[in-house]
């Protein structure tokens, strides 16, 4: 059909028809056959929804392989620690968020594994599941200083708060590691884990009141507490003669070098409290105080008060009446 009054540039004729033979509208001169103008595909109006460039040209995006591996590792660590489902899910969420942050995006794979461990630690702390940094270091096979550094960075990046635990929370789990149940060792040396844990917790609380715990590594304190608790539950000759090293070998637990010092400190503290027991007539020394641990723990608050009072009296006797009131040093 003839359309507008345009002229063919070749022959000058005005007999121009629309030709849509090749699905592209063209205006062709009917006389000489030259194409006057052709529409472009892009000029056709598009009435569908808007499609962004990235969607039209994007290849299907796959999640990063290291992220997937990292998430699997976090799941694995959570299952080794046998944590609750909520703890595992929270750890996975934290890992995903931290991984995609610029601080952790381009770090080494080792650091990313340590990050996974730190996410597990943070989520355990928030859900009140006691796990130590030492356990996490063991799981990720990392240096405690590096693990601590990554943990602090992660806390800042995610802007979360993870309350720390005190030593008493870990004592029960620590006691279960000792293989000194009734089936494992002879009856004179065997002790139920729950009974042992209860006495060890009481010893640790007493040590905390006496300032042995603050600022110190928790593991040697726990080893010392479990050792003294085990000795005091059945203070027979066999148990009293057994050294800390032999006890750790018996329970198949690795002995820490500092545990010996902590044992001595606890014995000193117990000796000072034991001196205040009014019904104990024989001479008390730090060596034979172990047999009195049961009584000391039972009456610990009143014994602590008596010890403080007697120390204050001794200080006042040394100094004149007008001297200023001073803090007595803690029983160590």
């Amino acid at each position: 059909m003839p359309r507008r009054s345009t002229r063919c540039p070749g022959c000058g004729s005005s007999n121009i028809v629309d030709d849509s033979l090749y699905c592209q509208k063209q205006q062709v001169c009917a006389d000489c056959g030259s194409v006057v103008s052709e529409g472009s595909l892009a000029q056709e109006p598009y009435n569908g929804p808007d499609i962004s460039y990235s969607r039209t040209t994007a290849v299907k995006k796959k999640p990063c392989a290291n992220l997937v591996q990292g998430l699997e590792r976090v799941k694995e660590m959570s299952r080794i620690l046998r944590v609750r489902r909520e703890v595992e899910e929270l750890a996975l969420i934290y890992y995903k968020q931290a991984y995609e942050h610029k601080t952790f995006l381009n770090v080494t794979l080792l650091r990313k594994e340590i990050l996974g461990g730190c996410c597990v630690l943070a989520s355990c702390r928030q859900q009140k599941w006691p796990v130590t940094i030492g356990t996490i270091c063991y799981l990720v096979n990392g240096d405690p200083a590096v693990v601590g550094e990554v943990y602090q960075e992660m806390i800042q990046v995610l802007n979360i708060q993870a309350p720390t635990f005190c030593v008493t929370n870990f004592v029960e789990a620590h006691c279960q590691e000792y293989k000194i149940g009734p089936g494992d060792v002879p009856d004179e040396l065997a002790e139920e884990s729950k009974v042992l844990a209860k006495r060890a917790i009481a010893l640790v609380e007493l040590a905390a009141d006496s300032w042995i715990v603050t600022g110190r590594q928790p593991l040697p304190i726990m080893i010392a507490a479990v050792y003294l608790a085990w000795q005091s539950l059945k203070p027979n000759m066999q148990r009293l003669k057994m050294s800390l090293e032999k006890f750790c070998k018996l329970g198949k637990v690795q002995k820490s070098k500092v545990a010996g010092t902590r044992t001595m400190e606890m014995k000193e503290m117990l000796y000072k409290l034991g001196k205040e027991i009014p019904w104990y007539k024989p001479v008390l020394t730090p060596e034979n105080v172990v047999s009195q641990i049961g009584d000391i723990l039972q009456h610990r608050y009143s014994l602590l008060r008596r010890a403080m009072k007697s120390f204050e009296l001794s200080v006042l006797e040394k100094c004149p009446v007008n001297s200023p009131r001073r803090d007595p040093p803690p029983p160590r």
Partner: protein
Amino acid sequence: MDSSNDEAVDIIVTNVVATFRTRCHLNLRTIALEGINVIYKPEVGKVLMKLRKPRITASIWSSGKIICTGATSEDEAKLGARRLARCLQKLGFKVNFSAFKVVNVLAVCSMPFSIHLVDFTKNNRPIASYEPELHPAATYRIKNLKATIQVFSTGSLTVTGPNVQNVATAVEQVYPLLFECRKPLCK
């Protein structure tokens, strides 16, 4: 120097780190050969020069940038830096003492009471952090002063900050918080 109670708490500045520039290239070999009390470290690319009075150690780089450590006050750091620049001038370099800046001040301080670190951390949760398995002290960071205080259970404090004034202010700020968590007199 200052405290909010009747007892004064002494803040002892143990280290001041300062940097300055000489605005000229320095030949480290010349300094190492002709300088007095110098140690040349070619693997790192610097020369250590130690002054006796004031007792400071300076790390000298060939770019002309110098870091002075070991001074016990800001004035001493400046005096030591100037003396160092004079030493370098005598060695034949056209030294122009510029851009002197105190970068870090380390001070120690001792509270007259012991501190319960767990309570202190609980009361000041996001600002204070305490990991007994990593370090025996609790760390308290004051953002606006850019100061970091390490609090030990014995009552000792280690404070680091950009200058002496900030360090003193940091100790003043943290004192009441520590006083709340001190060891109780009797149970």
